[in-house]
């Protein structure tokens, strides 16, 4: 356990003055994660909000070496960077201890970057891949992704006379990554900063491929107040919409169990993207979403019990 005071003394890799929106979850995730690195880091970034808003040439918000190539290949690009390190280190051309991290949004991770990420995890490169999951393609203007929650109103799953938003469930990426047999996979929320920090530390010292999925509200896409970002992160956890857990070499550990499990509507209601669900006639859909959350939570608890 580190104190906030200690953590605040860690030098910032992502400088202030970047161009991300007020209340964006992504830079909070980046700054919290990088506190766990404990060594110089080389950052790889998938195309997305974080990339375009922190690297507007000739400026850069990155105090660490940073590379971006394209949308779907942060996993592969980071693999190459890490392989270069292994090669130059064994030849004695690089002597420092360096850590490797890749950041991608949910579009660049769950969807278009899925294959490259799967490859990087399967090859067990010594790197940490962090998804900042805001649940849609926010950079291009709030299009649905496979991380978009059921019922969300997005510009490609718009609510209309015959539509109540996205019909499908979210892809459970954290479990899929854990199923690669990697040393470390975890789900985090910036509201639980100490839990996040400890998981980042574990990921960076896992000795192989690690995956962290971080919920990262987008006030623009979620249509919530930018001052409520951390509150939204907390509600996602307290409703069990976004459970905090880790999977270490196959063993599941739920790292936070809310004393009182709040109904999912507490998480949905403050968000404009779910407003239509609270109109008469959509009660069934709300019930369905609650059932999905309950089922996933119960299953996670059962997996924890089974693997320990």
């Amino acid at each position, binding site marked *: 356990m580190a104190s906030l005071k200690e953590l605040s003394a860690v030098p910032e890799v992502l400088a202030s003055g970047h161009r991300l929106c007020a209340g964006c979850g992504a830079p909070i995730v980046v700054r919290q994660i990088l506190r766990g690195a404990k060594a110089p880091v080389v950052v790889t970034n998938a195309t997305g909000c974080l990339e375009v808003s922190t690297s507007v040439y000739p400026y850069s918000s990155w105090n*660490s070496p940073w590379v971006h190539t394209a949308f779907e290949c942060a996993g592969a690009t980071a*693999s190459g960077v890490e392989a270069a390190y292994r090669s130059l280190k064994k030849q004695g051309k690089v002597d420092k201890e360096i850590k490797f991290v890749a950041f991608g949004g949910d579009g660049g991770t769950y969807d278009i970057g899925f294959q490259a990420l799967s490859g990087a995890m399967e090859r067990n490169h010594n790197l940490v891949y962090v998804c900042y999951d805001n649940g849609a393609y926010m950079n291009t203007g709030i299009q649905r992704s496979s991380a978009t929650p059921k019922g969300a109103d997005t510009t490609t799953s718009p609510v209309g006379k015959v539509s109540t938003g996205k019909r499908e469930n979210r892809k459970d990426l954290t479990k899929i990554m854990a199923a690669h047999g990697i040393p470390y996979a975890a789900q985090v929320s910036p509201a639980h900063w100490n839990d996040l920090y400890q998981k980042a530390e574990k990921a960076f010292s896992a000795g192989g491929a690690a995956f962290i999925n971080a919920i990262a509200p987008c006030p623009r896409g979620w249509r919530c107040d930018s001052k409520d970002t951390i509150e939204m992160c907390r509600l996602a956890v307290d409703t069990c919409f976004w459970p905090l857990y880790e999977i270490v070499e196959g063993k599941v550990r739920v790292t936070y169990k809310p004393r009182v499990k709040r109904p999912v509507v507490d998480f949905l209601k403050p968000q404009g993207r779910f407003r239509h669900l609270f109109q008469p006639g959509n009660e069934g859909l709300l019930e369905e979403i609650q059932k999905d959350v309950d089922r996933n939570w119960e299953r996670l608890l059962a997996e924890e019990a089974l693997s320990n």
Partner: protein
Amino acid sequence: MANEQRLAAMTGNEAVAHALRQIDPDVIAAYPITPQTDIVQYYSQFVSDGLVKTEMVTVESEHSAMSATIGASAAGARAMTATSSQGLALMWEMLHIASGYRLPIVMPVVNRALSGPINIHCDHSDTMGALTTGWIQIYAESAQEAYDNAIQAVRIAEDPRVLLPTMVCDDGFITSHGIENVSLLPDEVVKGFVGEYKPSKFLLNISDPVTVGPLVLPDYYTELKFQQAEAMKAAKQVILEVAEEYAKISGRKYGLFEEYKMDDAERVVVVLSSAAGTAKAVVNQLRAKGEKVGLLKPRVLRPFPAEELVAALSGAKAVAVMDRAETFSTQGGQLFTELRAAFYDAPKRPLMRGYVFGLGGRDTTVREIGKVFEDLRGDLERGSVSEKYTHLDVRV
């Protein structure tokens, strides 16, 4: 003085794999595809036998092969990959990123027809589609040339005046799987020739953090592309300098193109890669009958040596340009249209016609190339070309 060389019978792929082994790059990220596959297989064995220091990244696709190679190169490693056909097509997005980031990656490409329909045999539709990606392109007629080009490419790509990625191309199956006598230089001579890779800015230099691949908007993008174009111009001279130096260690001389019996040639065939070997046989046959025929075999397509080609062809009266890929422009193959354009300002222009030939691995023999020379004879007698561009050996 040329070095003591080892003459060995091997396929083009094996020759290229040996060139790579002697270069011994820091990182290779590659994915198997016919007919490139055994380059990757041979190399994997070199790694498993501890013959190289390379970290091999066996990626899950060619898109990732190029992405990982870019990552490794940006990190400060000498990084390479190899591919063919669909693999190159899948890399297309990343090809532009490699050149735009000025990363001196060397990539053997074993030419194979693009789908569809699927076909695993040779034509040049893969690399012709990559002419606008900002890569240097060098083509080989034989396994020996593929070997020699791969070694020279490292020096060309990494020259500070250039810093551009380079494709070294040879013909799928014909060259990649055909067994030839190849002269291999001693390992230490190749290592000495390519030298150590010393990038000026790289990711693993933690004390001098660099941002690679930022968002560049209209205020700077044009200047970056201009610099890239200037580097491609500079590459021409560098290619010649490297060739000259390579001749000293190997005894084998290379240029921007090869001229075969061109001195007094009136009728000339222009063709790339392995088909040039067949064309040489036809030239020999016709020369034996006293006919003034010649061959020009381009080696470098990017940068396109327009002035030099025009000068070399200035004595010709009729020229046939043979392209091993369609462009669907309805105006002929890529080499044909570029060479015609190069002659626009020339005071003297030969008759010029184009052929698309050898698609999807169709054999082009002395008979077909003999017909091309015959067509040129007809054009000369007529004083005009009978058809601007045609498909050679096609059932219609």
